C-alpha cells in the first residue's frame, strides 16, 4: 500500500501548486453556476406547479455540482496520454508497482487536490451570496460526506478505466473522448436527475454516473433519506469498474508492442 500512498501524496501536493488554474476554474464555475441559478429562478417564477425539487434545493444542487466540478471524471490523465503517444508507457511497465494501482492513485490525486482549491471558495461565495444552503440536518451532512467519498471512488474507477482505454491508441482515445460527454449528462450536471423524464429515470438511476453528482447532492439537501443504500450502489459500481479496468489493462499489456529505438 505504501508506494501508492506515496504517489498519491506526491501528486496531491504537486497539484496543490496550480493556484492560477484554480482561480480560473473557480471563476468559470461561478459564472456557470450563476447562469444555471438564474435559469432555474426564471423557471420557478413562471409556474406554480409542484416540482420534483423545490427552488432552494434545485439551486443548492446546482452550486454543489459547480463547487465539486473538478471531482467529475472528465479529464483523462494527460501525462498518461502523452506516455502512450510517445511510447514511454513502456517505462511504466518497468516500475515495481501494480500499474492499475499507480494510475488509480494518480486519478485520486487529480480529483482531490484541484477540487479542494475550488470547492472551499465556492462554498463561501455561493453560500453567502447565491443561495447554496447548508444541509438541513446533521444526518444529511454526514450522509453527504460519506456519499461524496463514494462519488470520489466510483469517479476515479471510471477515470482509470478511461486511462486504460488510451492504451488502445486510436479507438481507445476516441472512446475516452466520449466519456466526459456521457458523464456530464448522466451524472446530473446538465440537468438534475429528478427533472429527467420518467421513462429515462430507471436506466439513469441504475448507472454509475448518478453516484458522482446527483446522489451526494440530493442527500445533502435531504431529498434522499437513505445514504447507506446509495453508498452501497456507489461501492458496487466502483468494484465492477475496477475489475473491468484491471481486466482490460491485462489484455492491453499482453498485446502491447513497443517500438525499439
Amino acid at each position, binding site marked *: 500500500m505504501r508506494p501508492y500512498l506515496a504517489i498519491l501524496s506526491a501528486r496531491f501536493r504537486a497539484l496543490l501548486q496550480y493556484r492560477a*488554474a484554480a*482561480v*480560473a*476554474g473557480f*471563476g*468559470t464555475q461561478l*459564472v*456557470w453556476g*450563476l*447562469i444555471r441559478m*438564474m*435559469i432555474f*429562478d*426564471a*423557471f*420557478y*417564477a*413562471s*409556474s406554480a*406547479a409542484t*416540482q*420534483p425539487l423545490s427552488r432552494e434545493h434545485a439551486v443548492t444542487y446546482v452550486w454543489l455540482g459547480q463547487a465539486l466540478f473538478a471531482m467529475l471524471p472528465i479529464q483523462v490523465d494527460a501525462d498518461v496520454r502523452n506516455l502512450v503517444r510517445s511510447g514511454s508507457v513502456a517505462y511504466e511497465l518497468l516500475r515495481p508497482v501494480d500499474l492499475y494501482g499507480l494510475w488509480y492513485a494518480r486519478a485520486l490525486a487529480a480529483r482531490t487536490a484541484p477540487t479542494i482549491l475550488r470547492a472551499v471558495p465556492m462554498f463561501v461565495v455561493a453560500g453567502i451570496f447565491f443561495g447554496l444552503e447548508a444541509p438541513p440536518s446533521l444526518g444529511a451532512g454526514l450522509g453527504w460526506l460519506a456519499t461524496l467519498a463514494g462519488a470520489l471512488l466510483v469517479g476515479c474507477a471510471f477515470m482509470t478505466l478511461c486511462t486504460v482505454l488510451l492504451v488502445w491508441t*486510436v*479507438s481507445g*482515445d*476516441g472512446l475516452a*473522448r*466520449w466519456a466526459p*460527454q456521457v458523464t*456530464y*449528462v448522466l451524472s446530473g450536471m*446538465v*440537468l438534475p436527475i429528478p*427533472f*429527467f*423524464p420518467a421513462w429515462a429515470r430507471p436506466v439513469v438511476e441504475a448507472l454509475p454516473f448518478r453516484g458522482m453528482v446527483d446522489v451526494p447532492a440530493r442527500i445533502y439537501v435531504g431529498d434522499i433519506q437513505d445514504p447507506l443504500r446509495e453508498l452501497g450502489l456507489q461501492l458496487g459500481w466502483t468494484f465492477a469498474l475496477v475489475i473491468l479496468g484491471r481486466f482490460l489493462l491485462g489484455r492491453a499489456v499482453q498485446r502491447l508492442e513497443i517500438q525499439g529505438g
Partner: protein
Amino acid sequence: MVYLHLILASVRSQLQYRASFIIMASGQFLITLVEFAAIAALFARFGTLRGWSLAEVALLYGMVNVSFAIAEAAGRGFDVLPESIRTGELDRVLLRPRSVALQVAFRELQIMRAGRFLQGAIVLGWATTKLGVAWTVPKIALLAASLVGGAATFVGVFVLQATLAFWTVETLEIMNTVSYGGTETGQYPISIYRPGFRAFFTFVVPIAFANFVPAHLILGRSGVPEALGWASPLVGFAFLGACLLVFRLGLRHYASTGS
C-alpha cells in the same frame, strides 16, 4: 486567394484523421442534442419561461449555436496565438506580407465544429416550423445576417482573448466564460437574467443582438424597437471591428519572446 489555400490545407489535414473526425463531430452533435433535450425536459415540467414557449426558446437556442459554430470554425485559430507567441512562431507570421489577423484566423479551420452547427440548424429548423413563422425575404435576410453577425461577435471574443496574450504570454482560460458562457446565456431569452448580467451581454459583449433582438422581429413579438431589430446584425460587426482594433494595438505592443 492565399487565405483560401490556408483554409483548404487546414481542412485537408484534419480529414486525414477520418475516424477521429467522425467520433468528435458525432460526439459534439449528440451532446448538444442532449443539452436541448434538457431544455425541453424543463419546459415539460414548467410549461413556460417568463412568457416564452419552448419553440421560441428553440429559435434563440438554434441561432446562438449556429453563430457560435461558425465562429469556432472560422476564428479558433486565435486559440493557438498564445502558443505562437510563447514559441516565437508569430515572428514568422509577421514576416509574411499578408494580414496578420487573417493568417492567424485561418491557420486552423476546425471542421469538427460541424456537429454543433448541424444540431443548431436542426433546432432552428424545428423551431421555425413549429412556430409557423411567415417567412418573407427581409425576414430570411435578417435571420442570415443575424447568424453571421452573431458569429462576428464570438470571433471578436476569441480575438480579444488572444490579444490579451500579447501582455500575459499565456492563455486566459477565464475568457472562456465569455465565449462558452455567452453561448449558454444566449440559449435562453436574455430578459430572464439579472440586470447586471443582462447589461454585460447586451452592451459589453453584444450577444443579445445575435439572437434575442432580431428574434423579436422574426417572431413578431413586441418589446424591441423595430429599427433596432433590423440593425442588430451590424452590432456584431461593430464589436468585431473594435476587437480587431485592440488586436492591432496588441500587435504594436508585441515584442518577441526571443525563443
